[in-house]
């Protein structure tokens, strides 16, 4: 993968760059939604805030990207902690709706803080000449940047999932009362998981902002980002490291393939495929195959029956 940016044609490069972005986003969502079991439907808030934090710092304060990016991560984490402390007391649908609301709120604030953010008119990061705080990476540069981001998010998820903290996230997911009775500070576990999840997504937002150069609140607060993160994790297999990876790579490639080859109806077919996969593998593709190999039951029909309500 590394070095490939020198050889491959620009179209493929752009495709792979967006695959890497979604791998990072899916891994980020999986920490809170998959492992910890708190399905956040406002994850795009961290993406948008990360993008705007980096862009504002670079544009108005001429801060280098390498300072603006970690600052954007901290900003995302701070927002996650601020909304996480009250919202993580809610469970299930209530948490989902509350986070959705928080994301809408965040977008509104950014859109209306015109003096700082440029408001609905968007923001443009200077990338040329003496005005540019950091030289633009160019297409191959961003290919590499998003590849590293994706690899780092997979590595982080792997380390977390095997740590004591990883076990506490799973315990909180499966039974919060039992987890607390066994000495797990469930409040902390949830807030930290939400913070880590936000850090990955905000970091991706900062890179995305720099890559786009010019963008509007509606671009980086687009709810489709959240929806895609959720779908990729659920289809791939939540609560695993491989699941979001498979889901992000599979769905992003599929979506691009359909867009190129099917024209008008690509979204419809894409939707139909997602619905079919969710019906056939409600627990995610990776979880299905792991269990199938262990129990030697490969029947998809049985699987559908097992998870049917």
């Amino acid at each position, binding site marked *: 993968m590394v070095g490939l940016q020198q050889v491959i044609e620009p179209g493929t490069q752009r495709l792979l760059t967006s695959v890497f972005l979604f791998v990072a986003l899916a891994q980020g969502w999986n920490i809170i939604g998959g492992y910890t079991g708190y399905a956040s439907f406002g994850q795009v808030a961290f993406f948008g805030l990360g993008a705007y934090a980096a862009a504002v710092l670079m544009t108005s304060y001429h801060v280098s990207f390498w300072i603006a990016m970690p600052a954007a991560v901290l900003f995302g984490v701070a927002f996650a902690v601020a909304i996480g402390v009250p919202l993580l007391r809610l469970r299930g649908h209530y948490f989902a709706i509350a986070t959705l609301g928080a994301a809408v709120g965040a977008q509104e604030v950014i859109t209306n803080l015109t003096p700082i953010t440029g408001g609905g008119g968007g923001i443009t990061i200077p990338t040329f000449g003496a005005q540019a705080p950091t030289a633009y990476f160019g297409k191959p540069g961003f290919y590499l940047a998003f590849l590293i981001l994706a690899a780092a998010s997979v590595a982080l998820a792997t380390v977390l999932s*095997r*740590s*004591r903290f990883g*076990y*506490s996230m*799973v*315990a909180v*997911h*499966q*039974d919060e*009362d*039992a*987890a*607390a*009775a*066994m*000495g*797990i*500070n*469930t*409040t902390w576990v949830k807030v930290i998981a939400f913070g880590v999840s936000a850090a990955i997504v905000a970091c991706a937002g900062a890179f995305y902002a720099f890559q786009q150069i010019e963008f509007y609140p509606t671009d980086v607060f687009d709810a489709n980002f959240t929806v895609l993160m959720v779908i990729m994790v659920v289809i791939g297999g939540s*609560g695993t490291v491989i699941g979001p990876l498979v889901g992000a790579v599979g769905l992003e490639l599929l979506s691009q393939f359909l867009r190129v080859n099917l024209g008008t109806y690509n979204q419809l077919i894409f939707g139909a495929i997602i619905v079919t996969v969710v019906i056939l593998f409600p627990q995610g593709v990776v979880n299905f195959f792991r269990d199938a190999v262990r129990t030697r039951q490969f029947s998809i029909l049985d699987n559908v029956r097992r998870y049917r309500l």
Partner: protein
Amino acid sequence: MIAAPAVADATPILEVRNLSRRFGGLWALRDVSFSVPEGQIIGVIGPNGAGKSTLVNLITGHLRPTSGQVLIGGNDLTGARPWVIAHDRVARTFQIVKPFRGLTVRENVAIGAMHGHDRDHSVREALATADELLSLVGIAQHAKATPSQLNIADARRLELAKALACRPRLLLLDEVMAGLRHQEIDAAVELIHRLRESGITIVAVEHVMQAIISISDRVLVLHHGSILAEGPPRQVLADQRVVEAYLGHRYAKRSTR
């Protein structure tokens, strides 16, 4: 058997003072006071709805009391969060078993060793601790199974192993014998005995009284949220009010109507 040390000035490991909890208009527990000296087995019995589980939940921080105090080793931990209580070496089982379904039996137990008092610092150490405890409770052969593959007796043993993994000095058992057959009850009684001999103080809540009464140093009878009787098992069993609460339940209900 260890004779319970009856030192008068020793701080009780658990002291409950005037503990009450109201749910809406119903007092699930009202003005309950008792203390548990270190090294004893206390049996808490009572008919359904007597407030037994509420009592356990109030002690372990899963519920906050409406009034009253819970002291653990002399420290006031009233209303403290469950993990604070757990870190003070108080562990519990749940009446309705609460396994982590996505984890193996072994990992379930390891969670306690990772997060309870004096925790293991690596996942590997915690898994080793878990293996020892699975042998102790007698389900080592199911280490790699998932909790859903266990029968009710083994699921209760898992619940016990999870609590022991937190390295408790005080263990609260919420109906660990419910639904077990005679042989399984004998095994559980024998296990509780061994735990006490290893130095753990035990408060055992049971609906079925015969088994627990045989190993308890003292028995507490809860009825309608209050203590109906308290004392050595033999004395409590002979108490007319206790007999009524259990055997004459239906009769008593009819006569109050």
